[in-house]
């Protein structure tokens, strides 16, 4: 069974704070499909390092402002 990655993210919050940017618009900016953005927001998929940097650059924040390691998931 696929395991949920131990990484939290604030993509949805940042997207909404970014003039309510749509999932489709963010997907186009970072070069993935809208379904992949949905999967990232729901924590079902951890993006590649390149896509993670692209997301952070879209919102003009640091990588750790978008993605955080979930310490509780390791326990």
């Amino acid at each position, binding site marked *: 069974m*696929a395991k*949920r990655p131990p990484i939290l993210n604030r993509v949805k919050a940042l997207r909404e704070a970014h003039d309510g940017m749509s999932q489709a618009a963010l997907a186009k900016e970072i070069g*993935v499909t809208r*379904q*992949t953005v949905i999967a990232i927001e729901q924590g*079902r*998929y951890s993006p590649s390092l390149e*896509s993670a940097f692209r997301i952070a650059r879209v919102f003009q924040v640091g990588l750790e402002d978008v993605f955080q390691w979930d310490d509780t998931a390791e326990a």
Partner: protein
Amino acid sequence: MSFHEKSAWIMGVLLSLTGFWYISQVWSRSEALGETIGPNIVLIAVATGMLVFGAIISHIIIAASSPEEANDAEDERDKQVLRRAGNISGYVLGFGIFAGLWHYYFLADGNMLFHIAVASLIASQVAEYALTILFYRRGV
């Protein structure tokens, strides 16, 4: 649901149906004959024709219902999902072929070896579609 996931659903269902039809035909004809029938190119051609026809029609329908998604290239998640599903389904094919070879070693039934190989191909492909859907839904 992405275009790739819809495609996996359709192909999984179509291949299950055509595969079941093909195997049931081989089974019933073998029972009637009293031994395993030989490879039948007509049966394979009909099954392949049904599969290709169904796949073309259904893909035209899902592409027409969401043309933008149909034009999407595979992204990093798609590639990861398809690679992992393909990897695991390869074990299904390998197991089936291995079982077929041992069956041939002990019983020397070449016709049965052929049918086991075809059934293994169908099973591994159905497994690949099922795993693709699972990984899209549950995460890679």
